[in-house]
């Protein structure tokens, strides 16, 4: 995070923040100012590292079945136990981080990009385009996120890409609405008028001057959507309409084990849920801190 943003948002910080030098300095400063956000960032970092280095960390293959280890309890050679097919839980959770983060990141980026374009176009250019887009967004927002994603996932068919698209589409209206209202107020700003006065084309003003000013609310929104994208992915997988086999998805691990193992093999129920909750908790902590930092109006 740039030093300037930190200093700008609070007078009392000017003195403290003025001494911040270099990347490490900014990181330490962020950690001191937003301890909970730093914890969230740390949690995220652990999961990202897990996803990236899954091959090096996992001691078992997540897909290898082994009848002899069926429902092996935690401890022994399987640290977190094994599922009905004797697949190592730890390895499946480690590789599951890839699916969760890939879907979360993919859906958030896709949804934000589409929402940003739609919001910018309808806010800046207005007219019939704006009206049409607004009505379309109304329609999309008349279904809850999960229901929309369910219908989308069912009609696109099960695959990693389709799951990402199915979750990204219902995110679009939320983003578009925020970007649009931001654009509406930015459009009337003196600096836009100045750009127009020196003869800049409308398209260039929209991209070069209006767009960069919507980035702060976009980042705040994106971190909030990231967590819900991961939650929706896990719910879709739990309902059997998410990322298909053989990808180890945390949500599907819970549906395989669900009710019948509550009694006999609780570790199959506990660990994947802990993984989902920890990732989402991390994004929420980080998201709150980022919101406090970038959106001073909401800071208390």
């Amino acid at each position: 995070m740039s030093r300037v943003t930190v200093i700008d948002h609070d007078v009392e910080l000017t003195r403290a923040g003025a001494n911040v030098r270099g990347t490490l300095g900014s990181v330490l400063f962020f950690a001191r100012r937003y301890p909970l956000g730093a914890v969230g960032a740390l949690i995220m970092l652990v999961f990202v590292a897990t996803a990236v280095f899954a091959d090096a960390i996992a001691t078992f293959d997540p897909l290898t079945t082994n009848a002899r280890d069926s429902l092996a309890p935690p401890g022994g050679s399987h640290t977190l136990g094994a599922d009905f097919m004797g697949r190592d839980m730890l390895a499946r959770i480690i590789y599951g981080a890839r699916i969760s983060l890939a879907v979360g990141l993919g859906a958030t980026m896709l949804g934000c990009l589409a929402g940003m374009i739609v919001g910018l176009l309808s806010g800046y250019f207005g007219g019939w385009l704006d009206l049409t887009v607004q009505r379309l967004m109304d329609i999309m927002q008349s279904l809850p996120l999960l229901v929309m994603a369910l219908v989308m996932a069912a009609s696109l068919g099960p695959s990693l890409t389709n799951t990402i698209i199915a979750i990204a589409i219902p995110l679009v209206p939320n983003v578009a609405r925020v970007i649009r209202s931001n654009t509406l107020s930015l459009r009337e700003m003196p600096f836009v008028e100045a750009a127009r006065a020196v003869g800049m084309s409308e398209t260039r003003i929209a991209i070069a001057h209006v767009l960069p000013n919507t980035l702060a609310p976009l980042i705040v929104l994106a971190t909030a959507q990231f967590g819900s994208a991961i939650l929706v992915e896990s719910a879709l997988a739990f309902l059997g309409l998410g990322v298909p086999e053989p990808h180890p998805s945390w949500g599907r691990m819970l549906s395989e084990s669900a009710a019948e193992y509550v009694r006999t093999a609780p570790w199959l129920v506990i660990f994947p849920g802990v993984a989902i909750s920890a990732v989402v908790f991390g994004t929420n902590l980080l998201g709150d801190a980022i919101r406090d930092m970038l959106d001073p109006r909401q800071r208390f």
Partner: protein
Amino acid sequence: MGAYLIRRLLLMLLTLFGMSVLIFVMLRLVPGNITDIIFDSAGFVNPAQKAKIERQLGLDQPIVTQYVRWIAGLARGDLGYAFVSEKPALDEILPRIPVTAKLAVLALVFSVLFGVPLGVISAVRQNTALDYALRVVSLSGLSLPSFWLGLLILMACVQWFGWIPIYRSTPGSFWSELALLSIPAAAVGFRSSALVMRLTRSSMLEVLRQDYIRTARAKGASDPSVNYDHALRNAVLPVVTIIGIEAAFLIGGLIVTETVFNIPGVARFLVEAIRWRDYPIVQNLVMLIAVVVVVVNFVVDMAYVALDPRIKYEE
């Protein structure tokens, strides 16, 4: 106000019309229909028989004809026949609504009962240890997948009571039904209560910084009087919005929770119908949900006018 209401109602109709087209087209974009699923499980395909079933279900007609037939039926209160059970879709959907509605109401009661008071406490005690603890709890409410929370509750019941709270369609008394439903309702309501709590807190904090609160304190009003009489009454306005939106959006949490607790409600029924590509059920249920969302949004806006005399819809 009259003109506003008419415009608003027309927009609602337009939205619902758009939704009906969207859901209808999306369902039929899917490669394969219910006949493919039937023949998939049978293991072989008999083209003549497949065509016959498609004809019976009206799936051989052009998509526009199918759509017009559906909407014309809706206007007469005829939702068509479910593909799987071959019963009228209305008879399949209606009996499943009460249990889902009860769950939703209980979950809402739960979220307001916990969310609002805890949010107020958190705001009044801002930056104390209690505030931090409550904030972490509310953040965790937004982080736990509700189906996992449901599974954890099931696990706790098994562990401590050796008993699983399974919902039966013919429960005994009102109280036993309430007890059985409040467990899954808590699993769904935890998330909403966290949302309500966060919003109550930030809304309270914003109000507490305003001039008229300082005036109230300056003239010697007691802390409770300032917090509850002056601040809460204004802070509760945005909370009403989020409660309304949550009421409509609870269905998302109910889908997974009804699945976990094996409750025969509409939310779980929707997932089953989607799996079977049971078009009449899916499209009518989706429309039902859309109607609920749109109507609740409208009611919330109207409630706003009633609660806050500063807001007026004109033009």
